[in-house]
């Protein structure tokens, strides 16, 4: 007899869609309804068999692996804890407790995606809203340097484009959509207006929009490849909409000028509130990367790039960010939780990571897992472990355990390492 679990949250991306129906039988997942293709993969491709941890590729008992991890961390002078974005907040809290105890540097994947967004927020603030406000009120949506059509597959139908809400009963027909990007994308094909801007011109285009919103006249006719007349039309729409929302992605954070781009957008949105209601929402990627920011902030005061080396938290992006720590060879051991810097980091950082002992928490295979000194094949939050995650708009969502498991959670193992480490 199969059973269907309703309202399951998908831990894949920052949308944390929590309306999935998961059909299970004999502790096996048979079918997942309503999930996008990425979400399907989270549940259907999951190998639930419990495995023993590995030390140097050799299967050992959990106690032995915990002791080995503790001994590595006890001996390390400058341990790094990194990842966190696909774990639950309960485990993220333990990761900070471990960093506190051993004087580690702790950083999340935020530092390689929306780290600049956090710096922009610290510089100018951030007028934002929850995704329900977008669904219910937004009549103007602007997607800048992001492509939800490929990255957040249910964002448009659930929240931002075709979604129907209290003041948007006709969904798509009630919204004007702009996309600003350096190349055409699936998202730009759905837009009413697409500005294909020149690479590296985001700041210039945003500044021009600020000028136009204030009633100024640019001296150029074309900015970043876009005719000023079209930018003027957008500025007028922004000033006269009922509820406007800008979504921004790594097209802004990882382009030249990085946080300056984002700060310019946030400032534009703030200034628009003198004319109309306007908000901005960063398109956070991993399922609980927002939770990593939240947890680090409430425990340390800072969202990422935190060092406990002096016994108290210090914040310094560029110094305590994982890529920089590794590329400078400043870490002599690493705990990697639910992410794969081995696959995604620049060569110099990835090379140093290979040269130091790593303690990896992952429920599946990864580059960093394959080279781990100690590998903990823990449970997957949202599949065979329950926990809490934060949606891209900071709304907390519970992750369900849909099948049972013998695997320990990240939280369990971190707790044991905290106990064992000196």
């Amino acid at each position, binding site marked *: 007899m199969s059973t269907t679990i*309703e*309202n399951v*949250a998908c831990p894949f991306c920052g949308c944390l869609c*929590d*309306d999935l129906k998961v059909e299970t039988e004999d502790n096996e997942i048979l079918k997942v309804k309503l999930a996008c293709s990425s979400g399907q993969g989270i549940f259907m491709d999951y190998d639930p068999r419990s495995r023993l941890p590995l030390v140097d590729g050799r299967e050992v008992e959990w106690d032995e692996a915990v002791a080995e991890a503790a001994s590595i961390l006890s001996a390390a002078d400058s341990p790094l804890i990194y990842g966190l974005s696909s774990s639950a*907040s309960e485990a993220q*809290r333990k990761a900070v*407790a471990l960093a*506190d*105890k051993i*004087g580690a540097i702790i950083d999340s994947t935020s530092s390689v995606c929306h780290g600049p967004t*956090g710096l922009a*927020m*610290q*510089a*100018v*603030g*951030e*007028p*934002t*809203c*929850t*995704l*329900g*406000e977008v*669904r*219910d*009120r937004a009549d103007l949506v602007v997607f800048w340097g992001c492509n939800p059509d490929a990255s957040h597959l249910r964002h448009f139908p659930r*929240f931002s484009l075709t979604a129907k809400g*209290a003041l948007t009963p006709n969904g798509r027909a009630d919204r004007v959509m702009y996309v600003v990007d350096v190349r055409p994308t699936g998202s730009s094909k759905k837009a009413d207006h697409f500005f294909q801007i020149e690479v590296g011109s985001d700041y210039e285009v945003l500044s021009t929009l600020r000028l136009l919103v204030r009633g100024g006249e640019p001296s150029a006719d074309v900015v970043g490849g876009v005719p000023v007349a079209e930018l003027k039309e957008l500025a007028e729409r922004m000033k006269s909409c*009922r509820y406007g929302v800008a979504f921004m992605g790594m097209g802004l954070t990882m382009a030249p000028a990085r946080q300056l781009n984002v700060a310019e957008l946030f400032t534009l949105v*703030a200034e628009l*509130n*003198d004319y*109309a*209601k306007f*908000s901005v929402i960063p398109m956070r990627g991993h399922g609980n990367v927002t939770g990593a*920011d*939240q947890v680090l*902030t*409430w*425990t*340390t*005061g*800072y*969202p990422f790039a935190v060092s*406990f080396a*002096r*016994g*108290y*938290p*210090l*914040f310094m992006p560029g110094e305590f960010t994982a890529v920089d720590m590794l590329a400078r060879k400043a870490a002599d051991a690493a705990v990697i939780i639910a992410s794969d810097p081995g696959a995604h980091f620049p060569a110099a950082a990835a090379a140093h990571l290979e040269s130091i002992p790593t303690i990896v928490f992952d429920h599946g295979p990864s580059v960093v897992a394959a080279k781990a000194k100690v590998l903990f094949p823990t449970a997957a939050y949202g599949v065979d472990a329950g926990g*809490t995650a*934060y949606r891209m708009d*900071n*709304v*907390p*969502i*519970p992750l369900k355990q849909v099948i049972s498991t013998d695997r320990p959670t990240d939280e369990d193992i971190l707790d044991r390492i905290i106990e064992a480490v000196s």
Partner: protein
Amino acid sequence: MLGIIGGRVYDPQNAKAGEIGDIWVKDGRIVAAEEIDREHAEIVDAAGLVVMAGGVDIHAHIVGGEVNAGRKLRPEDHRGHERTHSAALRAGAGGTVPSTYATGQLYSELGYTTVMQASTAPLMARHTHEELEDTPNLDNGAFMVMGNNHFVMQSIADKQFDRARDYVAWLLRASEGYAIKIVNPGGVENWKWGSNVSELDDEVIGYGVTPRQIMETLATIADDLELPHAVHIHGINLGRHTSARTSIETIKALDGHRAHLCHLQFLSYGAGKGHVHKSEAVAVAQAVNASPKLTVDVGQVVFGRATTMTCDGPLQHNLHNTAGGRWMNDDVEGESGGGIVPIVYAPGNPINATMWVTGLELYLLIDDPWKVFLTTDHPNAGTFSNYPQIIRLLMDRGYREEMLASVHSRARNGAVLAELDREYSLSDIAVITRAGPARALGLKDKGHLGAGADADIAVYQEQDDKEAMFARPRYVYKGGELVARDGVVLKQVSGRTFSVAPDYDPRIEDDMRAHFKAAYTVSYDNYAMLADDASCTETVACG
């Protein structure tokens, strides 16, 4: 077992005003002397010391989404205020918006043992509870904002009072909240249209209801459900020169109901010359004095750095446009909103000085200390770490006059404050910092030292300088455990979270399932914490 022997006990709830007495502790509670086996009790000699219950803060922003956004927004604010890791203590960041571990430690160092989180949007309640779990040394609870809640406003518009009451009861359970909070009723909903409210009878866009109806309805519901704490209100027009008038109108509108008006200083201004507000504390205090079921806290401005953070979105936008600088806004679907603006209160700024004067006047003009409680609306008007300075201002007229002489002349000239010679006694301080807020919260085991009370105890060295005295308690006990000595925190213990569980017609749950499909982007099951086994809150009975 523990005995604190021979101290001067200030326990207004039990009519002790400095008499020499012994306090006995067993299993985390205060007990009668007979229950103690003195052979095996640890004895603390409190001769020459002042003994009070642990402090109770009725209104502070210490955890949750908005506070955490404030922490993140201000890295510069933490620097220089670090808290170092030790075997017993977690590291942390201080400043105006401290990290959770630092918050618990800092409160311990002031002798405070219970703090209520002043506002949480129910949609974000899980976040608040996660942070409360990471906040040591404090018993706590969270107030749930409902003054711009769509379901409440629709029920009022439909004249469905019972439905509104069942919903509020359900919502308090679903969010594991402690009390009903109202913030700028209707104004935050209107802010989502770029507007606000300015009168009690203004209309809320899309609902046709008024701030007056929202406040009356929620006050009635709090009474009907016999919630331990009254409806907790941040009214309309905060910070505006019309605020004293609308505060007095609000007090009249709530006539006959229990109510708590928070940080009333921010809502006690009239129009002064040249766009500088003036204090209307005399008129507001008079209205408070005449309302037997009303309590207030002040939200005293303290000169220096602060971080304003409220669920009052339009206020924060206005403040951003006035003060400049960084601005956070967060509109929360169906429920609430809010914003953050960092600020500095300067004695030489005429507006800031007027705010400072207004707060002190309220303290000194409200006759009954059981009606007015010590707060800074942390971190809005200043941080809780400044409470000892405020205590000195209330207890020491000379100090007050000296400080008044140093503030901007526009606030000083003609200020009623200069004529007020009232000085608070230690008993009065014990009321406004412990006994009074505990009673107003309906926390029967807090704020006093009678048998059965929680063994939350603060012991002070009496000094002429009351700021120094209260800044550095000799001993602080939380549930009978020594958590701080000589103003230095020693250890971390877990706090308890209080919640309420009022009854409701179970049919409201079906209404909610339907409502959630239409009104929220989160499913009913994932919003409500009704069946949450992980709940670690402790229910305080209604009635």
